[in-house]
């Protein structure tokens, strides 16, 4: 049984009222949703918030899903859109925020990664990623971490393949520069 036919079956079961099918879909994609949101936002708490939002959207909209694209493409699209919207709202909140820096630091310490070395490496990369534009970061993550083809990324983002290649190129160039700066 292929992955997409399995998804099709799970979605149909959920539409006919099987709540367990929804749980299976979540179990299958939860890591991908979390890590995509985490790399887009750069911290665990924001990623957790986005994961919950994405699951809510999935639950409410899955009944109208017509398999015009694959389920994982659709899930990535929701996660990407939610992440970008979340970051925009967060930036606005920070402009008008009265929250002190200490509270923000305490919050950002919460994590699900226990290995200190990996955590440091991750934080370093997250810091770099947050310095590049959202759309470039999105393409970089989908290409590098999720290992998707440009055709698949085009389906998720709705952008042309040429534009995506240009985005990836600029993202990679900036990341290389920022990594070198951080080393120095």
């Amino acid at each position: 049984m292929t992955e997409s036919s399995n998804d099709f079956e799970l979605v149909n079961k959920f539409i006919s009222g099987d709540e367990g099918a929804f749980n299976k879909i979540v179990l299958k994609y939860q890591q991908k949703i979390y890590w995509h949101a985490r790399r887009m936002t750069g911290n665990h708490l924001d990623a957790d918030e986005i994961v919950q939002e994405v699951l809510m959207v999935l639950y409410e909209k899955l009944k109208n899903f017509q398999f015009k694209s694959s389920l994982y493409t659709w899930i990535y699209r929701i996660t990407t859109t939610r992440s970008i919207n979340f970051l925009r709202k967060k930036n606005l909140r920070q402009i008008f925020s009265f929250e002190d820096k200490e509270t923000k630091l305490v919050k950002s310490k919460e994590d699900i990664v226990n290995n200190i070395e990996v955590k440091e490496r991750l934080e370093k990369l997250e810091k770099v990623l947050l310095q590049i534009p959202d759309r470039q970061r999105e393409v970089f993550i989908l290409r590098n971490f999720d290992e998707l083809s440009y055709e698949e990324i085009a389906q998720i983002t709705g952008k042309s393949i040429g534009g995506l290649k240009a985005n990836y190129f600029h993202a990679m160039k900036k990341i290389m520069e920022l990594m070198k700066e951080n080393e120095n």
Partner: protein
Amino acid sequence: MKIDERIILYVDGQMTEDEKASFERELKSSKELAEDFKKYNLVLSDISKVKNVSTENEYFLQMIPKFRGRFELKRQLKIIPKIAFSVTIIAAVLIFFIFNFNKSNKNLTQTSTSTVNQNISVNNYSDLSTLADQFNFSGMSNEEISNSNSILDSLLIEELDLTPQSLNNMTADNNNSDLNNLVQGINEKEADQIYKEILKKKIY
């Protein structure tokens, strides 16, 4: 770090076959390009080390229960505005009905009070002059005036101990015209005498 942009295109597979062959030839001959290529791959290797990170398993185990809890809460929060809206509508309808009921009740009370008052005034006032003041003929129909006159007549008859015929004689217009003719025919001397006679008589 300034990187040869061709490295990105080469690694990402964005080169044509000719470009790729040309780049690979230069990579072999140029130490500088080879060094850049090595650094680029080191960065990519660093990035790939955080591709599959081991995490607390508990977090992912709790993801669905957490979602279910939130979903239930959201559903409850959705119901609250609906309840509030329904309560407001019901309250508005109730207030509307109560207000209208009071208004119609008030009108009904006023109407019945005026009818009772009228009845009381007709039945209880034996004093003819007081009763006469109670009647407002301006707002009455012909039938009502006729009824009022008959009531007045009956009271007059009763109070003055008259027969209906004698009352007619006393109040008829032709009698008044006769009286006027009679008064006009009296001279000054006769009038003085009549006046003196009236003063001597005790009427009441």
